[in-house]
């Protein structure tokens, strides 16, 4: 769930935000229908917006009985601490980790690897997979695979990999890049970007070897129902919590 000023929004290729309701309400509905984890991303940049987001995290922690990750605007150790104190189980970092890779080591040392999810937005450019920051606006010279390996060595507990080429277009996840990451790394890889139908979820596990898959709009707009999706995956011999 992308959250702006306390409201859930979801874009297509990172632009065109559409509103999809109250994040806590939506989160509760998802936990009731079988989502395994929730992820809330703060896409407001202002100080006021950040306070609203922290209050939302506190409400989520009070009302929802499954694990959740929060991210967006995490720049330093204090931000991580504030989110954990508000009740988040895990915190995801993205641009700040590329700007200051030592942040990953610091968080891992202070709170343990299990709290730190390193989010990586990448695009398959003509010269290979590259990382992007600032919500996909700024290209970095850093290659996807080099960076993924580095964050693992620095102590990240999980990698949340979003393929910007696949995000929002509903043509399936980036299974080749995912398989490459998952087969190489020793930490879990969460796939994000590209879910359009239930077969894409089968492929992300069977071909992409992902440890988990994340989706937003197909769930927000009811195009895929979680209980049906999980039953389908179970029937396809993929282990899921039913």
């Amino acid at each position, binding site marked *: 769930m992308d959250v702006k000023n306390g409201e859930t929004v979801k874009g297509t290729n990172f632009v065109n935000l559409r509103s999809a309701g109250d994040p806590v309400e939506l989160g509760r509905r998802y936990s009731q229908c079988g989502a395994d984890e929730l992820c809330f991303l703060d896409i407001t940049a202002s100080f006021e917006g950040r306070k609203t987001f922290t209050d939302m995290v506190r409400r989520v*922690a*009070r009302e929802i009985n*499954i694990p959740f990750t929060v991210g967006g605007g995490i720049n330093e150790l204090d931000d991580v601490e504030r989110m954990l104190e508000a*009740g988040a189980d895990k915190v995801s970092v993205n641009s700040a980790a590329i700007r200051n890779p030592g942040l990953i080591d610091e968080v891992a040392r202070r709170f343990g690897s*299990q709290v730190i999810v390193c989010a990586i937005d990448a695009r398959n450019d003509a010269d290979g997979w590259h990382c992007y920051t600032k919500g996909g606006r700024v290209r970095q010279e850093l290659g996807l695979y080099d960076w993924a390996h580095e964050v693992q060595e620095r102590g990240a507990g*999980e990698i949340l990999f979003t393929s910007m080429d696949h995000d929002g277009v509903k043509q399936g996840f980036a299974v080749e890049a995912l398989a490459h990451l998952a087969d190489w790394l*020793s930490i*879990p890889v969460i796939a994000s970007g590209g879910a359009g139908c239930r077969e894409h979820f089968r492929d992300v596990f069977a071909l992409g070897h992902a440890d988990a898959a994340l989706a937003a709009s197909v769930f927000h707009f009811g195009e895929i129902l979680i209980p049906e999706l999980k039953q389908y995956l179970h029937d396809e011999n993929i282990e899921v*919590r039913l």
Partner: protein
Amino acid sequence: MIAVVKYNAGNIFSVMNALGRLGVEAVLTDDADLLRRADGVVFPGQGEASGAMSYLREHGLDVVIRGLRQPVLGICIGQQLMCRHSQEGDTDCLGIFPVDVVRFVPERHEDKVPQMGWNSIRGLASPLFDGVNEGAYIYNVHSFYVPVCDFTIASCEYILPYSAALRKDNFFSTQFHPEKSGSVGERILSNFLEMCKP
């Protein structure tokens, strides 16, 4: 009154929130008298064993917890601290369960440590699991585990079979996080609360 042990481990508020959802206003405290007087005590947490143990000793909480007579529920690092010894930081623990805590050793590429995520519990043998089905899913975050032993009341499989829950007399514990395990976890917590009724 339900008391939650206050110490330097993380993740304690998740348990307070989960008890709150079950309508229980628990007291978060490190006060020996309050802990002894409570109808039930929850000993939760996430963190590192040696640091947590030194804190408990410095605050005299080791003696208090060991001496509790009412139902006690240790969760995650709480369970590990209730054992005899932990490989994590080569730490002598409370010794309530006469068993030792060891680290997962990966055997294949898929064996990721810590175990983070949902897994299923079997061999449920305690009122703690009343109304919980064999194979029910629970949420885990841990690198260390207790092998299957005489005190095992539920087991789980990750790399190898291990104890998902333990019991000795009035002391219960789970390696998993019932406070994050959806409706199954809520059932387990309310079964524990049921045992605490005076």
